[in-house]
């Protein structure tokens, strides 16, 4: 399929796009160790607010682009054992490090020295994975291999149905969060 810009232009466009991403991560507060860790302690819901909003806005836009023939999907394969084990490790690592890979890179620029140390940990983790790749591929990625499946095909519920469901869930979650966390003083002192 044809895209409006050449591959070479797209490559260089990655720098300003990355810059916008980094700026948004920092301004959103998710390049802050405390914000990330306190999400998992259910004391700060910034991460969830950013992610769910991004998924909904991004998802509806990309669906429209895709329907109009202006975008392709890039679905990651559902090797379920690998995804579940990997995500479990990811959650453990994210709480210890206090960042995810993207926010860790953003945090390095804010003066977080432990983010820099963890960055070298990430590089070492990358080396460790490359060295164990053959084994992992044979013994873990081969289990429960479902392929590049999307929820609409799997369930029969169409794309827009999923986004309606997600929007409803997000609305309830956001409403509960704002009521519970963001205005505790307003309730006690009208």
């Amino acid at each position, binding site marked *: 399929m044809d895209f409006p810009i050449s591959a070479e232009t797209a490559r260089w466009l990655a720098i300003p796009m990355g810059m916008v991403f980094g700026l948004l991560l*920092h301004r959103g507060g998710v390049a802050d160790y405390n914000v990330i860790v306190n999400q998992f302690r259910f004391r700060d819901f910034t991460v969830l607010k950013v992610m769910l909003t991004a998924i909904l806005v991004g998802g509806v836009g990309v669906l429209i682009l895709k329907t109009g023939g202006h975008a392709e999907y890039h679905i990651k394969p559902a090797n379920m054992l690998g995804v579940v084990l990997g995500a479990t*490790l990811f959650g453990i690592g994210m709480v210890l490090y206090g960042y995810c890979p*993207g926010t860790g890179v953003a945090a390095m620029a804010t003066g977080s020295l432990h983010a820099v140390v963890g960055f070298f940990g990430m590089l070492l983790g990358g080396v460790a994975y490359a060295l164990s790749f053959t084994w992992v591929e044979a013994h873990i990625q081969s289990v429960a291999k479902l392929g590049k499946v999307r929820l609409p095909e799997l369930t029969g519920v169409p794309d827009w149905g999923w986004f309606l469901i997600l929007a409803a869930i997000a609305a309830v979650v956001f409403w509960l969060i704002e009521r519970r966390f963001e205005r505790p003083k307003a309730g006690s002192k009208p």
Partner: protein
Amino acid sequence: MNEPNEMTGLRREVDPLKPRGRWNPYVVGVGIGVLSWLAFGLVNQPLGITTALSAASSVCALPVMGAEGVAQNPYWAKTPFRWDGGMLFLVGTFLGSLVSVLSSRTFRWELVPSTWSWRFGGSTWKRMVAAFVGGGIIMFGARMAGGCTSGHGISGSLQLALSSWTFFLTLFGSGALTAWFVFRKNTPEQR
């Protein structure tokens, strides 16, 4: 400072705990969503971090394994180090955060963050070891799962991929359990 607004009668919200230069998280979420439109419609590459990062890790292995050893590794053979869009995006993420932190004048060196020191004290070594080990685990997990919070969590979830929603939900469950285990400390000041 906290006078009621003449027009609306509402008091302007002044939150002393809100750090300077921070934007509304919903607005930031919309921004990342719109950025995804460009990533899909213009660049044809979803937002992601760890694919480039794992390619960058091959550079660290060069001194030990040598160029041939790295080239022969089946994983790095698939994703070799090169200055492609993903790698430049990674560099951009760092630069963008730098621009943001300098323009909001919030740059400060941080060795031990407050939530950590509340639980584990002010020891720099302890924090650095945890960050290093955590970084290692997170990267290994990200490669095994096939993506991170950006590639799976946002880019994959917005495409309604089964793999990505499985990743997202498992990650939150695992993180919450880990956080409970690591940070449980039932002192009065916590409540």
